[in-house]
């Protein structure tokens, strides 16, 4: 991992009213596909929304693609090079897929002479080319999600943030999607938040595991699988190994927290 970091987060704290969603998180990512794992409510979506420049951190420093998110000019430049698929998003039901993706291309300031081709390419890459002129309201849930992925990649982003991209996709579409991910990950920094361990096993080069707003594990997919230890079952799959690694990493993290003296924890939270 000698490439320069495209995402550098230091001391990131995010609060929702009184609850702390992310607690002094440090994370640095370079081009490749990064899986963001964690139990529900661990802070995955909070992190993605900060990285997408949609939510403001309570404290901490966020640098994306070499620019500081806190400064207006640099943020605008970052947003041109960013792709974001929210966990939940709406659309204008009367728009066609083409119009929906073209609208986002317009918002992202894709030059007008390139936009039409970029839209068609993005829609084709997610496998919706045959429905490109269908209205959004006529699409199934999985198709809407794929249209969402198309809008995220229409500007060929250098930083692509996908929050639960495989939700609602059927197994075949998931396989196609992972192939697309691998293709995107050769150039861009792709962050995939997911609760499906098999997504991570199939597509991600490394994993960040978040638990209660804190980084519980960071390493390659193979390292996470190794944490789970050897299984006696010879027919064991990678997915199972990663699932065991996931559980082991979470458990180890919780043990470390419990073992730490209370005073130290208080001091850290003051930091």
């Amino acid at each position, binding site marked *: 991992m000698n490439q320069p970091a495209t995402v550098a987060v230091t001391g990131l704290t995010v609060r929702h009213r009184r609850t702390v969603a992310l607690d002094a998180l440090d994370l640095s990512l370079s081009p490749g596909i990064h899986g963001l794992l964690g139990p529900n409510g661990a802070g995955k979506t909070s992190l993605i929304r900060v990285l997408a420049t949609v939510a403001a951190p309570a404290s901490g420093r966020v640098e994306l693609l070499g620019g500081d998110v806190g400064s207006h000019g640099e943020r605008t430049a970052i947003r041109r090079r960013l792709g974001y698929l929210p966990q939940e998003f709406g659309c204008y039901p009367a728009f*066609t897929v083409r119009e929906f993706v073209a609208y*986002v291309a317009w918002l992202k300031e894709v030059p007008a002479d390139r936009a039409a081709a970029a839209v068609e390419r993005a829609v084709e890459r997610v496998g919706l080319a045959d429905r490109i002129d269908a209205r959004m309201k006529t699409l199934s849930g999985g198709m809407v999600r794929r249209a969402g992925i198309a809008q995220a990649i229409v500007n060929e982003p250098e930083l692509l943030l996908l929050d639960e991209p495989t939700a609602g996709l059927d197994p075949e579409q998931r396989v196609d999607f992972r192939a697309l991910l691998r293709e995107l990950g050769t150039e861009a920094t792709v962050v995939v938040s997911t609760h499906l361990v098999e997504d991570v096993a199939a597509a991600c080069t490394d994993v960040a595991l978040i638990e209660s707003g804190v980084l519980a594990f960071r390493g390659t997919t193979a390292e996470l699988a190794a944490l789970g230890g050897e299984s006696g079952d010879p027919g064991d799959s990678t997915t199972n190994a990663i699932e065991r690694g996931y559980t082991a990493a979470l458990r180890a993290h919780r043990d470390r927290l419990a073992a730490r003296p209370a005073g130290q924890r208080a001091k850290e939270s003051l930091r």
Partner: protein
Amino acid sequence: MTSPNSSPTPPPWHVSDALALRYAEGAAPETDAWSLEKHVESCSPCAGRVSAAVRAGAAGPALAAVRADLLAAVGHRPAPAPTPTPAAASVSAGHPLGRGARLWWAAGPALRGSWVVAVALVLGGAFALAYGAGFQGARSWLLAASPVLPLAGVAVSYGRHADPLYEITAATPSGGLRLLLTRTAAVLAVCVPLLTAGGALLPPVAGFPGAAAWLLPGLALTLATLALGSFVGCRAAAATLAGGWLLAVTGPVLGQPGTDPGGAAVLTSYFSGPVAQGSWAAAALACAALLVLRRRSFDHLETR
């Protein structure tokens, strides 16, 4: 592999890629070139293949230039590439459209059905009252309601609660104040002509301000909504200001029933005369200045 015309059975021979390439380079023997030219008249797959080879060859740039000139001569929009589906190209919004079309495109989602229906209802209601029921105060009621209609338009077109695409737009460079202003402009572009013309067509009320009198108050309230919206979000700001305006208009009228049909005196004091209009203009300027100061707040992050 069906030929669109002539013989029911397609010719067994087809143009090979190698031959198409040689033909494109002008290197094919004359007899082969003849066969090819005869064949492509009746076989569209081969014709497509040969065209592609020619376009890719040395003659490609010249052909593209001729095509562009021809399209320009017949007044056609230049397409970025020879697209195989002309029907799709015409609806593609990413094409270099005119400025006006682009503005409409940008604002399109803002002019949502419910709000346009509301504007139409207010206008229609005023006309029905004036001409159907013979109500003399219809014009003043329309004048009183006009300044809050753009506020409603702003409230339903931007922000987390109103715009289903908000989460996506918030991560784009155009997502903040620029998009809000574009949509506000669209709202005003619908409101101003409709309501002013509507007011002018209603029967005049004696001693009452003209149909254009609502323009400055409407602008001031719209800008106030944007400025206040930079603190509390557009929906809350629009609700506060519209509620305040309606109270200010209806309160005095309801306070003294019977004495003042149509609330003409109250409305006149709000709309008529250089002092009232001057104050609205000053308020509009002040709100615009505040909005300029607060311009970053829409861009950054999580406007409620």
